[in-house]
């Protein structure tokens, strides 16, 4: 997904770290990663995060989200939606297609986001001062902290022959942290790939009303 961006900017002191939040294990991510690799000789880091450790550390709630980190290891942009938009919510569910206007707007928004990354790498633009970066950070509550512990436990139980109890822990995790789409979708997605975007998913998206599924980055 980020290969072109990496290829374009890799000689300018830039690195992409793509982390697959993949509780079912590396094999589920591998086909996508192998496909990305074929197109290029050198690659960015493509990491597998079965326990959603990154979501715990950075308080993430959905994919794709990105954090921008400077040369000193400082966060210069808090977690934000990385190039995705809510246009999908208006798609025709029968044909799974979007209107040409929405498709164009979606691509334009994605390109705008990539341009912002390019500008940051080339000139430092869009890097936030400390106060602004801090103000954009999501707050971890006690419920969210417990949700991450239960999610970790649920993944472990699923992987060690106790899917029933694993599911129960994951569902509790999701209930404790309702803003986390990653937890909800991984709790829903045990047997069938695609169930995480089935009818229940659409119902839950509709229930957002005016609230965004992918909050736009504040560039």
């Amino acid at each position, binding site marked *: 997904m980020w290969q072109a961006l990496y290829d374009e900017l890799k000689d300018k002191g830039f690195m992409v770290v793509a982390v697959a939040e993949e509780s079912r294990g590396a094999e589920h991510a591998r086909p996508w990663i192998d496909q990305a690799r074929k197109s290029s000789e050198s690659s960015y880091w493509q990491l597998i995060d079965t326990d959603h450790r990154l979501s715990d550390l950075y*308080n993430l709630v959905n994919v794709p989200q990105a954090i921008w980190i400077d040369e000193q290891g400082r966060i210069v942009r808090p977690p934000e939606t990385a190039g995705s938009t809510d246009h999908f919510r208006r798609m025709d569910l029968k044909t799974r297609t979007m209107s040409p206007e929405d498709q164009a707007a979606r691509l334009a928004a994605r390109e705008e986001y990539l341009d912002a990354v390019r500008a940051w790498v080339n000139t430092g633009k869009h890097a936030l001062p400390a106060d602004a970066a801090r103000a954009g*950070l999501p707050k971890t509550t006690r419920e969210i902290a417990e949700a991450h512990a239960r999610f970790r436990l649920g993944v*472990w139980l699923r992987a060690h022959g106790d899917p029933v109890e694993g599911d129960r822990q994951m569902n509790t995790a999701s209930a404790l942290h309702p803003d986390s789409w990653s937890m909800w979708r991984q709790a829903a997605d045990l047997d069938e790939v695609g169930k995480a975007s089935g009818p229940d998913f659409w119902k839950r998206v509709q229930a957002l009303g005016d609230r965004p599924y992918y909050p736009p980055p504040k560039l």
Partner: protein
Amino acid sequence: MAIILTPTAEHKVTTTDGLWMSASDAEKVTGWTLKPEGMCLAERCVPLPVTAVKDKRVDVAAFWNKLGGPVVAAENGEVWALGAPADERNAALEGLMAPDFTLPDVDGTPRTLSQLRGRKVFLATWASW
């Protein structure tokens, strides 16, 4: 025997009555050392309630709750998870130094974020689901 999951590790230790364990196992699991003044990590010591320490054994669930960290268990009582306290997560992010982590790439090679110091890093999540 119980299996105890922490955010980055998995331990198998002998426990009794919940998460009572020897002080050395408590240190292995939590990183904190039992001292006369309480459980200590570097310069910091957290006093333990009198009901949470006895005969050089520690009630790690009580200690972890005192730290503000979640303690959860599977129904069978054999597998536990100790989560990071919310305050610790918030403080780490508010310091703005990107929390470090090590994760495997698809071939199993471990990669650590801080190895990339000196470069701008675009850290992004994705999923196949």
